[in-house]
């Protein structure tokens, strides 16, 4: 097990969160993009704003419908990914790497504890989409 490997966890709202020290990167899962279909619009939180765990922190829209994006933990928005605003189809192409949504300086590391591991999330995603 590599000591430097950062921790990736998953929420029931189909967001992933990768923690590096106090900095968290958040995006939506591949499974979420498959349920949404072609994404044609993305709205991100404002840099410098504060977001609360499980609160709305963005929107994605497919040709069919709009869906809220929630933040799995609380914190201050320190960066947003303009690339996905300019070309929302990148979210379908690479949802769990380059098409991240926003970065947070997190408030409370313990909020990570209630989130799912990769294995738990995959099981959850399979059960809820059946």
């Amino acid at each position, binding site marked *: 097990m590599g000591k430097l490997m950062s921790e990736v966890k998953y929420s029931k709202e189909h967001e992933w969160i990768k923690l590096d020290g106090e900095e968290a990167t958040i995006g939506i899962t591949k499974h979420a993009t498959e349920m949404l*279909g*072609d994404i*044609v*619009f993305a709205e991100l939180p404002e840099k410098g704003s504060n977001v609360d765990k499980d609160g709305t922190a963005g929107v994605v829209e497919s*040709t069919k419908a*709009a869906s809220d994006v929630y933040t799995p933990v609380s914190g201050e928005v320190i960066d947003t990914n303009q690339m996905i605003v300019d070309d929302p189809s990148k979210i379908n192409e690479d949802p769990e790497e380059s098409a991240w949504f926003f970065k947070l300086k997190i408030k409370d590391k313990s909020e990570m504890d209630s989130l799912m591991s990769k294995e738990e999330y995959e099981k959850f995603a399979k059960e809820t989409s059946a």
Partner: protein
Amino acid sequence: MSIKKTSLNNLHIKYGAKLVEFAGYQMPIQYKDGIIQEHKYTRSHSGIFDVSHMGQLFISGGDDLTNDLEKIFPADLKKLKTNQSKYSFLMNNKGGIQDDLIITKTSDGFLIILNAACKYNDYEVIKSKLDNQYKLNLDDSLSLIALQGPEAKNVLNKVIPGCDSLKFMNGNNYVYKNEKVYITRSGYTGEDGFEISIKHSDAEIFVESLIENGSKLIGLGARDTLRLEAGLCLYGNDLDNDTSPIEANLKWAIPKSRIETEFVGSEVLKNQFQSGVKKLRVGIKPDSKVIARGNTKIYNDKNQEIGKVTSGTFGPSVEHPIAMGYVDNSYSTVNTKIFLEVRGKKIPANICNLPFYKKNYVNGEINV
């Protein structure tokens, strides 16, 4: 009531359809390629749409049929030649639209194509207005398949030779596998195309042969983005019982020769022709990338509510959000600045011309 399946249900599953319930039928919303690819494939090549859930109502019998149908529909049925089609409406007494439909004159009567969600009610309404004098058959032994796009004529001509000579909004009988099929040159995507009425048992093999010749199955999701780009109305969203054809900006579908005559809703329509209407259907283009969906409230620059969006999406061919809706008539001029309330914010937008995407029909009839 159990959910109905069309004769192409197994084919939908074979080609990876995501199935949803629509108007009591299990229908494909999209296939593996997704809505945007399916939309673009229809615009650049051709797409196959299962529209078998729509009603195919045959009416025949009696010399007065044309007269009696003109008492119901505001179309010029007397002038209609055999195999010619017209877009028209079934209205209520208040001039509201109960359904929008296509009437085709056949050799022994008329064929009316009805929206899936309205067809049983339409049948009852039309039957009672005709006083049970004629033979009405809402034929559930036939599938209906639309083939749309610039390559539609080449693809269909390989499977059913000769159909490329059909003119727009005209139909004819053809033979496929020794069985009669009825084909009209029409559609609802803004592209050239055909609708093929065919026996259930031949539908699957017919569609497979269209696929072998380069066409692809397209779901309801892309059908919706295609029709909206083409500025065409979806019944239940853009048209309803409280909206007249004049308000819906569809008065081109009511011929001048019928305005002074009687049909269901004619008094209200005559009045609206003379005095105008309060609300009008318009095209709407947001300035930014924000999508305004159905029921989005529309405001003027003084923050007064002036209307409502009835359909809105992202247009894959125009590569921009597009919408249609109803606004107070005084705001219906093209380039009027309006504001759409999306997630609590007022998004600037403009009234614009319809269609968003320029149509690509073949010659034959300008008056669609």
